């Protein structure tokens, strides 16, 4: 009996230990999340290293190799994802499009989140007229489809990449403002923010180190919802020809362009569509998961 007990750990221990380790690892990082995280990281690498990664210039014509099929459909390795009707390499264009779309979505989300959160917290802090003004602006924005606002702005002011990014930043700022205002009000009324103020803390400490970190998880989840929305909005506007203008290219721009060749050369459109779907899905999933991770009561 004692011999057996002494023997067992030596032979049997390593395997369960490793399995448990693995199990713990996957409990903390579910496989679906790892995939999503991997995809988002890949997109970031592509966006950052677009110039190095793209095999051809995204505007280079190769008129002899027009509408070439991608590898899976019998095409040559020279153009892995095929070429479009002007003989431009789809892979190179896709890489540049990812950079452009992520750039727009990233800065758009950042602008919206910063502006919305600031206005929301200020409204809750100052109350009175300022709050009423912010609420009117929120209602104004929420009552109008943003697509219409965007179309109007682009039609009036023409198109320019800076203007376009700022415009995307106005998408859904009202959501952050509403969340931030509501949560700040409830924190100020009864609870930790009031308690810290009663201790004698100043506004910077209350909002900076208590209110903002506490509402951050909600705001971050909101950001992961807005990010895909902006990608889709940008795609929609570019599809309509009002977003990113040629010769620049974006995912939506490519989809809109590839639409004309959907029967003859579906790969022109399928590649950017797949990237849009996978990226938005990954970010949404990550946001959901992040919410749980950021909340100490759920850990």
């Amino acid at each position, binding site marked *: 009996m004692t011999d057996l007990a002494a023997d067992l750990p030596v032979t049997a221990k390593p395997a369960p230990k490793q399995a448990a380790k693995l199990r713990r690892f996957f409990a903390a990082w579910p496989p679906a999340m790892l995939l999503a995280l991997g995809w988002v990281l890949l997109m970031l690498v592509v966006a950052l290293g677009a110039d190095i990664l793209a095999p051809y210039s995204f505007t280079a014509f190769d008129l002899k190799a027009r509408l070439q099929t991608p590898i899976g459909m019998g095409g040559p390795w020279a153009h892995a994802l095929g070429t479009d009707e002007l003989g431009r390499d789809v892979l190179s264009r896709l890489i540049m499009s990812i950079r452009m779309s992520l750039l727009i979505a990233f800065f758009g989300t950042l602008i919206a989140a910063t502006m919305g959160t600031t206005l929301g917290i200020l409204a809750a802090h100052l109350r009175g007229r300022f709050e009423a003004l912010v609420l009117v602006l929120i209602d104004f924005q929420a009552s109008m489809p943003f697509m219409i606002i965007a179309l109007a702005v682009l039609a009036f002011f023409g198109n320019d990449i800076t203007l376009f990014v700022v415009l995307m930043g106005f998408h859904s700022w009202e959501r952050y403002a509403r969340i931030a205002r509501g949560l700040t009000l409830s924190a100020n009324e009864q609870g*930790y923010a009031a308690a810290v103020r*009663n201790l*004698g803390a*100043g506004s910077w400490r209350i909002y900076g180190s208590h209110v903002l970190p*506490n509402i951050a998880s909600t705001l971050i989840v909101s950001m992961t919802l807005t990010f895909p929305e902006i990608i889709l909005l940008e795609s929609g506007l570019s599809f309509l020809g009002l977003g990113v203008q040629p010769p620049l290219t974006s995912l939506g721009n490519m989809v809109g362009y590839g639409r004309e060749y959907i029967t003859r050369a579906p790969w022109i459109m399928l590649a950017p569509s797949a990237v849009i779907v996978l990226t938005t899905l990954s970010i949404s999933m990550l946001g959901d998961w992040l919410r749980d991770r950021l909340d100490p009561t759920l850990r």
Partner: protein
Amino acid sequence: MTAPLLEARSLTRHFVVRQGSWPASHKALLRAVDGVSLSVGKGRTLGLVGESGCGKSTTGRLLLGLLDPTAGEVLFEGQPLAKAGSADWRRQRQLMQMVYQDPLGALDRRLKVAEQIGEALEIHHPEFSRSIHRDRVAAAIEAVGLQAHHADRYPHELSGGQRQRVVLARALILQPRLLVCDEPISALDVSIQAQVVNLLLDLQHSFGLTYVFISHDLKVVRQISHDVAVMYLGRIVEYGGAESLFHAPQHPYTQALLAAIPSVQQRGIARPTPLQGDPPDPAAPPSGCAFRTRCPRAVQICAEAMPALRETGGGRKVACHFVEPDAAAGLAAA
């Protein structure tokens, strides 16, 4: 007992509220606190009792200067309260702290216990070195009867009583002289309530604290308080030493409140009937005595004149037309 630590002089706080739905809405004046005067000596406990909505909590916040009074003033150690946010206000904050009804709500759930408690020090004594800071936090944790290992917990990992101890430790770390406890035990289990009350009594004994204890639990108020003020609709209707007030209540409202305490001992003895109905709308109080709508003894004069809070002997004060000044026997015998 010469100069009281805390004194309130005809403290009044009115709120403007909107009543009714939109087209027919009108502004009304809600007299949450209406001419409350009281004083608390150093090391003593003043119990503030009354039904919900009678202005107890508002009074507590006015006393701490967390709310600006519409009229009247609060003196702390003989000095009027400083304007909120000023340097003097910050200095006074150290000496007067608040204990909350909902400890989980009053704590930042993202921060560990030690960080919560230490924050008060960070605000007022940023010059403290890390070791002094740690020692002070450890001392506060010990003073309220928590274990050292609780320091690394999050608020949601603690029980209700432990959370309230954390709130107390955060208040005590600045070595205050006055604690305003706003229903500190009503969110706790009965078994925990006794522990927290005993802790409050111990802390008062060892640190010479002064308490304003706001509660609707009369038994606890009787146990912890030296003096008791009974509030009804923003006014003090009866004031006196805890023992004499609970033993021989003079105001009909106090009598009714005491009659509402469940008890097993007094069966068969005639007791005043507990109160019926709700308190009247504080935005539209009845004329004369605010309590007359529910008072079993109300007569014509009660609707005409508001009774003043008058001395009735033995350090007691009552606001009722039926209680003769300096006639301590008064209603209690009747």
